[in-house]
């Protein structure tokens, strides 16, 4: 007997559910579990002592054909009216926007869940019997992927509940195999508070989800708990985790754990994919917006009861609740870190050694946190990599009591490289703040430690700080300076003569950011055609482009440079300056431009020749 009380076209909604809503067909398992758990919850409202269970049977297809699945629950079931209500409401909706409203009530969710099976099947049979009416007959719904369906009363005798038969379509066989199905059931339903019994090939059913969430269990000791939770993390993410942090938040009603990633995964920023359950059902393994952006040192497994999922149920709406949850979870992580700093510094030390970037990211945003954690944060210095606390004591020890220590840092890695040798020779401790967050943190150091001053330095500054010459010296060096200026001008470099340490260093090449970029352009242009050369000029020039300053600073304290001030031969002086220039470029590990290579090659030969003329020439005289 066919019942057509309503003429309803299910084609639109089936197309939406089967082809457009979800990123993968495997969520049909989640949808069926969701329906079962909702039905059991509803039945408990009628019969508070009803325990409920979900049974899944896998029947392999004959001759290697597609398998058939039976999903059965002993939940509330549907009455005749409810079946038609579900058909009527869901038949009217074929837009994504309608789904949210449908999901929000039992019947609508039921319909979406059921019809999602069309992702893996062309034909669905459902038999349901309502618990609301002891005399209710069972109903049989048969739907096909083309949108046609029949509803008939049936004589099948069983208790209240719903059974869904799904025959896999060949293209979806992989989602319906016994092994795959068991994995999916455990993945989506592992936290459900109702037993999921699974059987395949006629074997005895097994309960898949006996254990529940590891962070909700009771343990005999802290070690046992640690071991169990870390084992869980290793299983979930296939990575041995360094540590774990319990998470709890009232906004969003969240409970779970954050796993601290090991060093091999420490520096990968970008989306951290968290595993998130919604009311104990797995929502997604790729939620990336649950934690504040600085928290990229952890991966979470959490359950949320109070957040709104998107229509596809694969992430959350970015709404005020999510924002509040994110803030609360951030606070939970932060207060764990602060507590650990107080009670278990060794544990924190191990964590920060691996995750200092994450800690620095938070410290930049949160001054109070910075204050607590500052001493642990490592910085690269001329004395190696040291924590800020140690650095502060080194600086303090270096000044007389009562005086304010000064922390000098370079803003870029390049500058550090240039300045480090000078700083070392002058016995200055210098910090490389070229890495992420370091500059911002150091600039703010006086805010959390008013007893210290900080100052950025660049090579150019250090040269400016070098000792000025007295008038007599300046007079003596004037000729050398003039020749050096003339010689270096074609290389876009100016010259200075100063006195600085170490005396062994005859000259120092200092270069700013813009000039450094200009050098890289020059080198790239050497192998480029006209078009690309023009492009690079266009990039390096343009309005507001800084031509950039490069300076060769000659050291009058160096004996060789001292001698040069007494050389009268301009040709010799020019060659010497050119070689000092090239040598200081190489000392700074700068690749040489072609013109500079020429200086090097010709200059060496010329100097040798000059040397031979000066000496060998005399000796060779008859």
């Amino acid at each position, binding site marked *: 007997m066919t019942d057509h009380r309503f003429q309803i076209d299910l084609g639109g909604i089936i197309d939406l559910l089967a082809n457009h809503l979800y*990123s993968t067909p495997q969520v049909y398992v989640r949808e069926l579990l969701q329906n079962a758990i909702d039905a059991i919850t509803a039945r408990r409202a009628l019969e508070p002592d009803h325990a409920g269970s979900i049974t899944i049977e896998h029947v392999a297809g004959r001759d290697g054909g597609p398998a058939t699945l039976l999903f059965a629950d002993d939940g509330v079931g549907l009455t005749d009216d409810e079946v038609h209500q579900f058909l009527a409401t869901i038949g009217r909706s074929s837009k994504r926007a309608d789904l949210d409203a449908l999901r929000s009530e039992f019947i609508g969710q039921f319909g979406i869940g059921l019809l999602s099976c069309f992702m893996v099947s062309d034909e669905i049979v459902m038999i349901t019997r309502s618990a609301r009416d002891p005399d209710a007959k069972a109903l049989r719904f048969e739907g096909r992927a083309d949108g046609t369906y029949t509803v008939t009363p049936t004589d099948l005798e069983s208790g209240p509940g719903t059974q869904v038969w799904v025959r896999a379509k060949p293209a979806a066989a992989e989602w319906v195999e016994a092994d795959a199905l068991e994995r999916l059931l455990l993945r989506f339903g592992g936290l459900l508070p109702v037993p999921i019994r699974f059987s395949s090939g006629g074997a005895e059913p097994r309960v898949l989800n006996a254990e529940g969430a590891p962070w909700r269990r009771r343990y005999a000791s802290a070690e046992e708990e640690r071991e169990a939770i870390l084992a869980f993390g290793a299983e979930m993410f296939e990575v041995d985790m360094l540590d774990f942090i319990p998470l709890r938040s009232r906004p969003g009603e969240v409970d779970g754990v954050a796993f601290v990633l090991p060093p091999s995964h420490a*520096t*990968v*920023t*970008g*989306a951290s994919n968290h595993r998130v359950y919604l009311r104990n059902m797995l929502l997604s393994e790729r939620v990336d*917006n649950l934690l504040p*952006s600085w928290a990229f040192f952890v991966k979470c497994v959490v359950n949320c009861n109070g957040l709104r999922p*998107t229509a*596809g149920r*694969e*992430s959350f*709406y*970015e*709404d*005020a609740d999510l*924002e*509040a949850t994110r803030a609360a979870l951030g606070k939970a992580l932060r207060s764990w870190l602060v507590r650990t700093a107080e009670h278990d510094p060794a544990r924190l030390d191990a964590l920060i050694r691996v995750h200092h970037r994450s800690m620095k*990211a938070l410290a930049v945003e949160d001054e109070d946190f910075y204050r607590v954690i500052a001493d642990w944060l490592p910085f690269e210095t001329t004395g190696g990599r040291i924590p800020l606390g140690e650095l502060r004591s080194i600086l303090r020890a270096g000044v007389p009591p009562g005086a304010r220590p000064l922390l000098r840092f370079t803003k*870029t*890695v*390049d500058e550090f*490289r240039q300045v480090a040798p000078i700083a070392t020779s002058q016995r200055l401790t210098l910090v490389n703040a*070229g*890495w*992420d967050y370091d500059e911002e943190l150091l600039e703010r150091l006086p805010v959390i430690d008013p007893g210290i001053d900080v100052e*950025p330095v660049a090579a150019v500054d250090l040269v400016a700080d070098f000792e000025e010459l007295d008038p007599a010296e300046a007079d003596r060096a004037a000729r050398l300076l003039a020749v050096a200026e003339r010689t270096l001008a074609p290389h876009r470099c100016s010259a200075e003569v100063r006195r600085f340490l170490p005396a062994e260093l005859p000259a120092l090449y200092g270069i700013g950011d813009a000039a450094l*970029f200009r050098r*890289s*352009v020059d*080198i*790239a*242009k050497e*192998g*480029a*055609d006209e*078009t*690309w050369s*023009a*492009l*690079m*000029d*266009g*990039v*390096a*020039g*343009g*309005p*507001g*482009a800084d031509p950039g300053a490069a300076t060769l600073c000659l050291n009058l304290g160096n004996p060789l440079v001292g001698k040069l001030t007494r050389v009268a031969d301009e040709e010799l002086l020019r060659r010497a300056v050119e070689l000092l220039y090239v040598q200081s470029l*190489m000392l700074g*590990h*700068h*690749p*040489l431009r072609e013109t500079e290579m020429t200086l090097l090659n010709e200059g060496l030969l010329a100097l040798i020749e000059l040397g031979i003329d000066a000496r060998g020439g005399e000796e060779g005289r008859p």
Partner: protein
Amino acid sequence: MTDVDRSRAQELIDRARAMGFFDHSPAKVALLEEAVRLADADGTDDDLRWDARHELVHTATFCGFYETALVAFAWQLGKCDENPERWHERDLLWQYKWIISSLHRFPGIPLERIDETTEDMARRYERCGLNQRPVHDVRRRNALFTGNLEATHEHYRLWKATPRDSGADCAACELANEFDYFLVAREQPEEAIELAEPLLDGRMSCAVVPLSCLAQVLVPLLRLGRVEETVAHHLRGIGLIDDRSRAIGSVGDHLDYLAITGNHRRGIALLERRFAWASEGRNLSGRFTFYLGAWVLLSRIAERARKPTRKLRLPRSLPFWREDATYRLDELLAWLEGELRGLADAFDRRNGNEWFARRVTAARELLALDTPISLAGR
């Protein structure tokens, strides 16, 4: 000494790689630039010089250091042409479209040069057996950014008519570009927003998308009266910016939004935090968009301020930087106007139109909008 340079270069490349594929921080760029310099200083190992640059082009592009990427890429392309047996052209094509679609950002590059380079890209795609879809895409984007609407529509048509093949840009990026086209070239915000729905609701994303869409969509949504939707987009968009200085233009869009919605304190915090990206970076079109946003925000604040001055933490590198962090708003606005005029002139002179000058006018018109939204506690 050369051996030291070489092994240090390799070490720096390894260190950069260990930071992860999705790390596009200035710190990683710095590592790789140093690696390139050392590999060049060593000069004996072309594989190393190539590898360092290959990493650098990728990281610098996503970090928004387009000029750095361009210079490194130019070297690679030169190597390819010098010895096509050893260096494969096909390996560079994916990056080529990034390079070309960044050229318009530099007003020092004439349009003919952009065209010539795009021709070269087209030839290379053809030679590698790929269709012209990405070429039409970059042509359209360059045409739109330089204010040539006629060409924009034509390249859109051609792009649409060419199917995706293995050389096509990532689907999320393509959709974001199409969104931009409907929003800016067609001035059809509703269609654009509907089109971008999979990006806006998070179904589609990639390394760069939907960061820019979430910012661009804010003011149009306000104008359409869809005020409630903007909050989530703004918050999510701000969250995605993180340490990507590439997003400096998007920061400008968020500043517009915070100005119009009366969230001035947040606006100032954002402005302070990102100012150096704009003023110190070489991405001039990004700088332009950021300064527009900064101008809108500070103008709105000045309209309503009781005092002529305001405390601001600005980068030290600015010519008018003050130790006491107190600035006169009128002076600051005048400085921004000067910068904007200079940039607009340079772009418009190159483009032969008034597209950028019109963008400045449009920013002034934004001040007519006033849609208070409370972001407190969000």
